[in-house]
């Protein structure tokens, strides 16, 4: 799923400082699963904004709603009747949300309340880790199900680099050296020869380097 963090309250307050009536829109997709933009988080942020503005002596009218998915035009229709009743709209979805909202309602102003970080999952309660860089050409099978593109700080295809020590990345002790893990797994399984192959230069055209991407499924198009 897409994993995100909420922006600091001060930053959100600054975005809407001139507004008196605001709508806060949550999303029941990924950001609900990673506990950052679902109904519960919408309530918490909504309350915090109201309190902060009251304290400033400039109370705000802030309505809340949480829709199925902000990345689907069908569900964006859920706010069509009310979208023009506000000075601005805060989106509590990943970076896709405010953009789909902007495209659906060109006359309204939309603001992000969260920072979208990566594609990953929860490794323990309250901890999410990156697993995929969305490079568009999956190579995971060559590395026993572990992706060096997403998980090595240098995305190298022949690791580990000289900075790997005790299973940790040179960048931080909090980062696992994924190459250390790949190598140990191959050694344990007696398949070291898999790592004696010189890999071709990666074709980054399928990644973001090739420009903004589209996925077209002709059989699904109407």
């Amino acid at each position: 799923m897409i994993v995100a963090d909420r922006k600091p309250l001060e930053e959100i307050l600054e975005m809407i400082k001139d507004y008196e009536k605001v709508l806060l829109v949550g999303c029941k997709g990924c950001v609900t699963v990673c506990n950052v933009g679902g109904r519960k988080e919408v309530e918490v942020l909504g309350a915090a904004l109201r309190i902060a503005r009251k304290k400033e002596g400039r109370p705000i009218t802030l309505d809340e709603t949480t829709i199925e998915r902000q990345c689907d035009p069908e569900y964006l229709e859920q706010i069509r009747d009310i979208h023009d009743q506000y000075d601005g709209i805060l989106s509590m979805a990943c970076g896709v949300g405010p953009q789909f909202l902007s495209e659906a309602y060109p006359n309204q102003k939309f603001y992000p309340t969260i920072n979208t970080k990566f594609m990953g999952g929860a490794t323990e309660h309250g901890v999410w880790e990156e697993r995929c860089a969305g490079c568009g050409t999956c190579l995971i099978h060559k590395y026993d199900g572990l992706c060096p593109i997403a998980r090595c700080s240098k995305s190298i295809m022949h690791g580990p680099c000289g900075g790997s020590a005790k299973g940790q990345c040179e960048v931080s002790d909090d980062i696992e050296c994924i190459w250390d893990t790949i190598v140990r797994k191959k050694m344990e399984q007696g398949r070291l020869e898999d790592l004696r192959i010189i890999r071709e230069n990666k074709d980054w055209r399928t990644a973001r380097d090739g420009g903004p991407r589209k996925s077209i499924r002709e059989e699904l198009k109407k």
Partner: protein
Amino acid sequence: MNENGLKSGSNLEKVLVAGHFAFTGECGPPKGANVEHLKEKYEHLRGMVDSVNITDNQTAVVRMSSVAASAIMVGDGIEPNYQMVCRDRNRLAMMADILGAYSLGIKNMLCLSGDHQHFGNHPQSKNVYDIDSIQLIAMTKLMRDEGKFPNGEDVDVPPKMFIGAASNPFGDPYEFRVHRLANKIDAGTDFIQTQCIYNMPRFREFMKMAVDMGLTEKCYILAGVTPMKSARMAKYMAKFVPGMDVPEELITRLEGAGKGKQAAEGIKFAVEQIEEFKEMEGVAGVHLMAIEWEHKVPEIAEMAKVLPRPTFD
């Protein structure tokens, strides 16, 4: 190969091919356009070493470009070993710089991953890593030997570089390090300069594995030496420099030398190392990285009895 049977005809290549024990040095370009400062540093190395590594934004701190500093040295009659890291440039920029470097008279090149920019003075920058160090070796070899770019197009005058790479015998997982060295050799490196060595027992073991695997028949391995200036420096390197293995005994030895004598003890240890490397099977030379201590190189070279350096007509 050139007509003379050499790949590049660099001085370093000639020294190694002739079977001499190579001795290379290192020089970091200035944090600015201070050419005089650069000259002052490398002049200490003139006649003392076979080639001088010019670092490329080392530790991810921005400095005068390694290609420019290398070209200045070429003009001044000292042979550079031009370092290139994968952190700062994509394959287009790499190929362009390789061609540019060669056209400026640079004949040795060291292919490196590079420290992550997190360590440096511009940690906000984007990290490139379009290709990695092993792919950089292969690409340089392709351009040199086949006269081709990776897309199959012809190179109009191939860059005849003597291709080098680094190896860290002390990184983890330890058992895999010699295999990664083998990958670099398969990719086409002509010589290797190792990470600074302090843990001698471990390095002896590493070299034995390399010899047993036949790697030293395919590539010249230069052992990395950085003299410690003090016990404090040793402790710092042990703790903060990625992939560095500094045994406790060395720190104790430096501390035991007493105040004012630690630098001399550090040099003494480095000289002992060089003496051992001369005898060690598979070691073709020493790469001396006297960081911000270039003026000590003549003294160390003298003590290690590696002078005079061989010359060729």
